[in-house]
């Protein structure tokens, strides 16, 4: 395999007929050999962006570089990229062997070379015994591997994957995720991977690009995305269960909500400010109250979700809840239990506590809040203030 090449998107815009802007001036650089994940709620433009890189969608404005080559106007067959589709899109009348070899055949590889590479990839993916079957005779996971193999066998300059795991059941998805990571370590091929699942994004991506309404919000490593979200949307989207938000006031070096005053980290520009903020606390950001001197918050558990090692406690907090476009857009993409955030008049918090802590519905629970686990956002623009 040749040297890995990078992919550079320069001010990419996609405007559909009728004026809908699906992708808006996105700048993104995927480094050679990098595994880049595009994530965002449905309709955020991530698939459109990927399809533009593949050449399946025309680019309204901007330039796409594949290595040192400007491929913006190239047809898909002129670009050396392989794509894995959400539906797998296997050729139904061809055997697995011919499905795998099709791309090589179309690109004029010699028969011997083709057979060698198909055998090699079939071996890697454990498809050897299935080579003569038609896709109809395969299970979902096997089909998924064939789709993957069809991309790998071509040894392209880049892999483009459009939610390739979303049709698998939960268990298989987790194991395929691990296999995909191993495969990438082994091949080192530049990869762009699209998903709406932030867990998939965090676990797979070396870097993750978060999109919303066609605009790139933040592109960073998973830990930085989790710890330093640039705005309310990224903070609400990344992490499961999602971050708790509440309207609060900062004054005299402390933030106040629901009758609790928590000192703002010293050195922060908020330490001297006097203003309204949106305060964010991750479900894992609470401690069990002890005599460690941290400010405490008392809540009455309404729902307790048992997870084994841990529990999710859902409780109301006596402070105005936050309901902005950004949090709603992020939460809509999440699971149903997060939607519980929405209906209540008061803010509703999800708190993750250790499994050995006794919690009963209706019995008050006292939690400690550590100042360095707080996130601050501007109520109007949603940008991070930390």
């Amino acid at each position: 395999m040749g040297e890995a090449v990078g992919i550079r998107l320069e001010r990419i815009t996609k405007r559909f007929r009728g004026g809908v802007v699906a992708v808006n001036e996105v700048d993104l650089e995927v480094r050679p050999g990098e595994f880049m994940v595009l994530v965002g709620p449905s309709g955020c433009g991530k698939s459109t962006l990927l399809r533009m890189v593949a050449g399946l969608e025309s680019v309204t404005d901007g330039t796409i570089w594949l290595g040192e080559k400007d491929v913006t106007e190239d047809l898909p067959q002129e670009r050396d990229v392989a794509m894995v589709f959400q539906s797998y899109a296997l050729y139904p009348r061809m055997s697995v062997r011919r499905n795998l070899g099709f791309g090589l055949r179309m690109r004029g590889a010699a028969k011997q070379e083709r057979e060698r590479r198909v055998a090699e990839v079939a071996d890697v993916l454990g498809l050897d015994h299935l080579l003569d079957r038609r896709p109809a005779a395969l299970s979902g996971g096997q089909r998924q591997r064939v789709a993957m193999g069809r991309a790998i066998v071509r040894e392209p300059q880049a892999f483009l994957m459009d939610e390739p795991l979303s049709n698998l059941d939960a268990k298989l998805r987790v194991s395929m995720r691990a296999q995909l990571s191993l495969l990438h370590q082994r091949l080192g091929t530049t990869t762009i991977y699209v998903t709406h699942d932030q867990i998939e994004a965090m676990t797979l991506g070396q870097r993750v690009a978060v999109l919303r309404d066609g605009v790139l919000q933040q592109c960073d490593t998973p830990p930085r995305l989790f710890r330093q979200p640039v705005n309310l949307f990224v903070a609400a989207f990344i992490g499961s269960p999602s971050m708790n938000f509440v309207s609060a006031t900062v004054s005299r070096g402390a933030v106040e909500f629901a009758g609790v005053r928590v000192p703002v980290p010293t050195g922060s520009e908020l330490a001297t400010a006097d203003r309204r903020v949106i305060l964010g606390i991750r479900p894992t950001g609470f401690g069990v109250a002890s005599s460690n001197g941290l400010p405490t918050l008392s809540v009455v558990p309404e729902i307790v979700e048992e997870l084994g090692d841990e529990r999710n406690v859902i409780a109301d907090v006596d402070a105005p809840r936050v309901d902005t476009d950004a949090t709603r857009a992020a939460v809509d993409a999440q699971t149903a239990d997060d939607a519980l955030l929405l209906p209540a008049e008061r803010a509703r918090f999800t708190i993750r506590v250790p499994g050995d802590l006794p919690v009963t519905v209706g019995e008050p629970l006292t939690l400690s809040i550590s100042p360095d686990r707080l996130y601050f956002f501007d109520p109007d623009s949603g940008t991070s203030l930390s």
Partner: protein
Amino acid sequence: MTTRTARRARGPYLRAARYLVLFLFGCLFLLPVYALLVTSLKDPASVSVVTMWELPGKLSMDSFRAVWPKLQNGFVNSLILAIPASIISSILGAANGFVLAKWRFPGADFVFPVILFGMFIPYQAILIPMFRVIASMGLNRDLSGLILVHIIYGLPITTLIFRSYFASISEELIEAAKVDGAGMLRTFFFVALPIAPPAFAVAMIWQFTSAWNDFLFGIVLTRTEYWPITVALNNIAGAQTVPFNEAMASALLACVPTVLVYVLLGRFFMRGLMAGALKG
């Protein structure tokens, strides 16, 4: 609950009555076929209007033997006409349909209705100009002109059939082929055609039947020795005194190929050619 029980109790009688009515209608519609069958299988001597509904006393192939020499030439002509007309028209229709459904070009939405419009032009309306064109091309001597006319006249319907069929195929399948490096022609031949047999079955049955059954173009565009079977059939049935048994035997012989085509190609109506392409 009570009404549902009542309905269930009434069910069997209602259903029996419904099937009885349907059966009676079925018989009514099959009466001509019955007459056709029994008359053509009777001994020619025992054929008469009085006994036309009676079963043959003994089976006889004499009627078939009598008409076959008169039909044979037309039969062969019709085969030479209908087979290429249906195959070529279907292949061209498949290409049209593929491009109109999956390889869209600017103006496709205009071109498709224009092609479809051809379906609504009656044969009679264009008979004379068509004859002039075919004659000036020198194609009115043998079957080639007639074959050409049937290929072209079939294009609107075959295009429609294949366009609808290809439209139901996942866009991602075509896109996968594009990314794999196939252009338009290779996507058509390697990906689209292998899954098209059901559409071919429909298009070819339709085309074969209409080419086989055509009378007007057949009689106008060819010389006597190239007349198709419909013309030969008409000549037998249209004679001064009508020998029922011969007319019926000829009609029976004339419809054998279309029935055969239907039975043979009908097997390709099978579903499941797309099985396994998508998801799990």
